[in-house]
C-alpha cells in the first residue's frame, strides 16, 4: 500500500460554510500552495479526521470542478449516531487547520458510452454529481438530475445546481410536498441511458429495484451508497496470520479500523464495501462471517474464504486472516 492512501495530501481548510442545517461545505487548498492532483467527476478522497486522540478515516466525494485543481470541495453531513467522523469534522475542524487526505480515487465515474445520463440523488448524495455534471456539461453530453431533499431548509445545494443547469435539474421535497418517483423517471427511456444513483442505502436500493423491474440491466445502473454508519456490532477478535497479532474489534469500530489502531496496515480505498481493495483471505474460521459489502458475489460469500475488513464482521470463536 502506498503512503498516498494513508495521507499524502496536506489540505488546508480554506473555507467552511453551512449549506443546510446538517451539511457543511469545506473548501481545501494544498497546504504548500501548490496544485492538487487532478481527478475525474465522481471521485472521492479519504480524509483523516483527528477525533479525541484517535483518527477517523472518512471518504467524501469531491464536489468542486475537475477542471480546477487549485482547490477541492467536499460536503459533510453531520451524523449523530455514526462513527463520529462527521461529528469531528463539524465540531473540531476550523478554517486554517491542515488535514491529511489520500489522493482521489474514482469508483463512480460517468460512462463514456452513455447516450443519456440520468442522475438520481438524495440529500448529501448530490456531492459526486456536482463534479460529474461539470464534466458532462463541458463535453456537451446530455444529462438530467433528479434530486430529493428533506424540506425547504435542505435545498440549498439543489437550488445552486438549478441556477447552474436550469431545467435539467428537478428538485423534490424542497417545497415540503413533491416526492421523487423513480419508476416515473426511469420509464420509457431510450436505449443507452445510464442511471447514476447516490444517496441513503434504502433510496439507492429502491431505485435499483425500480430499474430492474423496468428491464434495465446492471451495466446501465451505477450507484454509490452514502452511509456513515461504519461497521458496528458485537465485538470479536481476529488473528493476523503474518504477524500473529490478535486484535480485538470493539462494537464501535470496523475490523479495518481495529487493525489500523493496533499499528498494522491493510489496503483500502472506499472504506464502504464497494471497491474491493481491502479483500482479504480468510485462513481459518470457527463461526460465521457477517458480510456487509457490495463487492463479494454470493458464491464468494458461501465459501467463507474472503472478507472485506472495512465493513464486514464475524460472529466467531476464531478468525484468522491472511494479513
Amino acid at each position: 500500500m502506498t503512503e498516498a492512501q494513508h495521507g499524502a495530501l496536506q489540505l488546508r481548510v480554506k473555507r467552511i460554510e453551512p449549506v443546510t442545517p446538517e451539511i457543511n461545505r469545506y473548501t481545501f487548498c494544498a497546504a504548500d500552495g501548490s496544485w492538487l492532483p487532478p481527478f475525474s467527476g465522481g471521485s472521492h478522497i479519504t480524509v483523516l479526521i483527528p477525533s479525541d486522540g484517535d483518527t477517523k478515516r472518512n471518504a467524501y466525494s469531491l464536489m468542486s470542478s475537475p477542471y480546477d485543481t487549485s482547490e477541492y470541495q467536499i460536503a459533510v453531513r453531520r451524523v449523530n449516531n455514526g462513527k463520529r467522523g462527521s461529528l469531528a469534522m463539524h465540531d473540531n475542524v476550523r478554517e486554517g487547520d491542515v488535514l491529511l487526505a489520500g489522493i482521489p480515487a474514482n469508483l463512480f465515474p460517468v460512462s463514456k458510452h452513455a447516450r443519456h445520463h440520468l442522475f438520481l440523488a438524495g440529500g448529501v448524495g448530490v456531492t459526486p454529481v456536482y463534479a460529474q455534471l461539470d464534466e458532462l456539461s463541458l463535453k456537451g453530453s446530455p444529462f438530467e438530475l433528479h434530486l430529493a431533499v428533506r424540506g425547504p431548509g435542505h435545498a440549498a445545494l439543489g437550488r445552486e445546481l438549478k441556477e447552474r443547469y436550469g431545467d435539467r435539474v428537478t428538485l423534490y421535497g424542497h417545497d415540503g410536498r413533491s416526492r421523487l418517483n423513480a419508476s416515473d423517471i426511469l420509464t420509457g427511456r431510450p436505449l443507452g441511458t445510464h442511471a447514476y444513483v447516490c444517496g441513503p442505502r434504502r433510496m439507492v436500493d429502491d431505485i435499483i429495484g425500480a430499474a430492474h423491474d423496468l428491464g434495465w440491466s446492471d451495466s446501465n445502473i451505477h450507484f454509490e451508497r452514502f452511509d456513515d454508519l461504519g461497521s458496528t456490532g458485537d465485538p470479536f477478535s481476529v488473528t493476523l496470520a503474518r504477524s500473529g497479532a490478535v486484535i480485538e474489534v470493539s462494537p464501535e469500530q470496523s475490523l479495518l479500523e481495529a487493525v489500523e489502531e493496533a499499528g498494522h496496515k491493510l489496503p483500502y480505498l472506499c472504506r464502504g464495501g464497494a471497491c474491493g481493495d481491502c479483500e482479504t483471505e480468510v485462513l481459518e474460521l470457527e463461526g460465521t462471517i457477517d458480510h456487509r459489502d457490495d463487492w463479494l458475489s454470493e458464491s464468494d460469500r458461501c465459501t467463507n474464504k474472503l472478507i472485506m475488513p472495512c465493513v464486514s464482521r464475524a460472529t466467531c470463536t476464531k478468525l484468522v486472516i491472511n494479513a
Partner: protein
Amino acid sequence: MLITGIKSRPVYDELTPMTSGLGHVTAAQGSGGKPLVRLLGEMNPDQLAATTVLYSTESFTGQNYLADIQKFKVCGLIVFPANADAVRGLDAFLATAKMGTRLYISGSEGFIGTSMQVATSYGMNRDEVLREHAGSFSRRVWCAHCSHYSENVTRRVFACPGCELNLIVRDHYSGRLAAFQGVKADSEVPGELPENEELDT
C-alpha cells in the same frame, strides 16, 4: 501459416430468452433462422407477444427458415430480401426502442458483426445482447488499402474487388470494423503469392 485461435476472435453465445427484459427484438439472417426458431420455441406467450422478429432471407448457403418462423405468434415479423436491409431495419427499430429491450442476433459472422455495430451505436451493453453464430464460417474482410468490405470470403488469398490487389486474410478480427483484416499478399516480392488454402475457421 497464420496464427489461428487468437484472442480477437469473437466468442458467441447461445440464444436463450433473457427473462429480465420487457421487450425483445431479434435480427437473423439465413442459417441464423435455426437458432432463432429454437429461441422462439423457448419463449412463453407473453415474451413472444413482446418480440419483434427481423429476418433476412439472404444466405450464403441458401438456408431459409422463414416458414418455420412464421408459425410463432410474435408482435411483429419483418422480412428483408438482403442482409444489409435487415441491418438497416434493426437500426430503425433501435432508434425508437426503450430501455428494457433485449436483442438477439444470429447468422453469419459478418451479419452478427454489422448488427453489433448498430447495437453498440445505441449504447446497448453486452448484457442486453446475445449473439449466436450459425451456418458457414465465411469471413467478412476489410481491405487495409482501400477500405472495401468483402463478404463471404472463404480462401486465404483473394483479389480485393475495391482495389484489385491480392489480399491475404489475417486472423485478426476487429470488433469495431466487424471484419477480418486483409493486407496485400505480395508486397515483398510482387507476384509471389502464398499458398491459397481454405480458411480453417
